[in-house]
């Protein structure tokens, strides 16, 4: 007891410091978790969360019978997986190539340029993408026209849409993604390169046998941490670039939840879909953190 009061006397300022943060996070993150109850209700706004009639698993059954659901899940996984893979390969390659530049100021100039799109919102970038890809006035179709290719409606064509999502997403994020790999590159022991040079290894051999293995821990770590993202196809981007004609190839879980919940006011149903996504994401993210801890001894805090 004496020990406890002494501890309290020493630690009370630390508890006090946490009160504001905790208050915010309880209200805006934990209270909504109570709202999950809606997934099991036919939610009626006027009756409120605790007054609306319970319907059990009906919302979930409705989801299972929903005709488009398998397509929506497929689109989500397809776009997200392609983004994860391309989002790993491109930054790693660019980081290695940037590292080959000998003049420091050239390297820094290129870096500054490739970071830029990361800091702009998908609203602005979508505005730019829509303009550039426009079939009537877009510059890309103008250029294609010069070599005799007929205008392509990239954002309105199911053949193209998922790939445009991947390409524009990689374009936005690859530069920023190089930061972490460039940091890993500077940590590789220079004496390894010197030793291999004496053994007669060329630059290509060095990249293959020293640089890549040296980056492996961070590559494995980034891949692992990205597992949790396979259900995140990128709401901000897709929502701003899609249209009903590309729902077939571009409608994903998050955009579906938005349309059902906010536009069509099917609160119970949208919450049920969101809940399923949250649960699967929770399992995946937790698993990826455990894996990252086992494989790379990575801890978030």
């Amino acid at each position: 007891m004496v020990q406890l009061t002494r501890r309290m006397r020493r630690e009370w300022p630390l508890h006090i410091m946490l009160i504001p943060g905790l208050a915010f996070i309880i209200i805006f993150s934990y209270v909504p978790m109570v709202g999950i109850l809606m997934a099991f209700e036919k939610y009626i706004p006027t009756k409120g969360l605790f007054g609306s009639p319970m319907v059990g698993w009906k919302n979930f059954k409705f989801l299972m019978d929903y005709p488009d659901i398998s397509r929506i899940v497929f689109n989500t996984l397809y776009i997200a997986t392609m983004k994860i893979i391309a989002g790993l390969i491109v930054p790693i390659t660019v980081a290695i190539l940037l590292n080959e530049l000998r003049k420091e100021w050239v390297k820094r100039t290129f870096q500054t340029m490739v970071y830029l799109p990361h800091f702009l919102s998908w609203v602005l970038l979508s505005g730019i993408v829509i303009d550039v890809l426009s079939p009537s006035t877009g510059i890309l179709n103008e250029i294609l026209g010069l070599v005799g290719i007929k205008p392509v409606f990239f954002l309105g064509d199911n053949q193209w849409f998922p790939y445009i999502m991947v390409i524009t997403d990689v374009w936005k994020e690859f530069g920023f993604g190089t930061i972490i790999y460039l940091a890993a590159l500077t940590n590789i022991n220079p004496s390894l390169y010197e030793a291999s040079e004496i053994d007669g290894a060329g630059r290509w051999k060095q990249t293959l046998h020293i640089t890549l293995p040296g980056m492996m821990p961070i590559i494995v770590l980034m891949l692992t941490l990205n597992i949790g993202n396979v259900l995140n196809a990128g709401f901000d981007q897709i929502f701003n670039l899609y249209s009903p004609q590309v729902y077939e190839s571009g409608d994903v879980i998050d955009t579906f939840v938005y349309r059902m919940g906010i536009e069509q006011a099917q609160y119970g149903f949208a919450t049920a879909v969101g809940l399923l996504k949250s649960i699967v994401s929770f399992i995946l993210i937790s698993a990826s953190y455990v894996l990252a801890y086992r494989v790379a001894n990575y801890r978030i805090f």
Partner: protein
Amino acid sequence: MKKSLGRRLFLGCNFVFLALLSCLCLMPIIHILAISFSSGTAASAGKVVLWPVEFTPAAYQNVFGKPEYLRAFWVTIQRVVLGTAISMFLTILTAYPLSKESSQFGMRTFYAWIFVFTILFNGGLIPWYMTVKAVGLIDTIWALVLPGAVQVFNIILLLNFYRNLPKELEESSKIDGAGHFTTLWRIYAPLSLPALVTTGLFTIVWHWNSWFDGMILMNHPDGYPLQTFLQSIIIKMDLRFLKSQDIELMQKLSDRTSKAAQIFVAAFPILVIYPVLQRFFIKGIVMGSVKE
């Protein structure tokens, strides 16, 4: 040492490739800038590439002459200032106790998990919306500021930074009789400047770029921040809310050059601040993510 021919060839190709790649990141923005300063006829004829054709600042006069655009700009400035101030205060304050060892602060791990759990799991869009509504924030500036005030990733970044500071600092300030609050404000906060600038920059950019919360939490377009306003004009081409029967105005705001001008104006502050802060965020990210 003399470089071999193959090596020199590679270096040349590598330079050209990276130069093209870097330009690829910049060119769409320059293209938009060129369109915004071109005449409407040149833009719709598709004559503009990277330099304005028939130079005119008309699109900008158009944009800055519209009270709707300026009001949205003002909402964004409010949310950036209020949101960043509140977020940074909470980040600095929350990261400190969580950076302690369990031996110094017994419930540290328990508290840390309360925060981290919110990254792993959330109630979903609809319950979140209902909560913000129940708190009574809809249609107020606080709807854009308070729900996102605790940025768990920034807290983690900063607490990892705190942990890498020498332990002797804390011990010596304790010997000098300083309490936790004094230690935090006088020693930890000033020393973690690179991490604070990094998290501050991320928060500013996050607030500047947010549009979704404005779209669903504001019933009235007068409360839209800039990005939400642009989203409805440029992307959705939803002109209903301009509440003006003035067809000319609608056309002016939604034609290609005006759209380009609006995009560029919204991108401009970011174009200015990010290169300056670059060395901070690189250092901040690298140091915040390394644990010893």
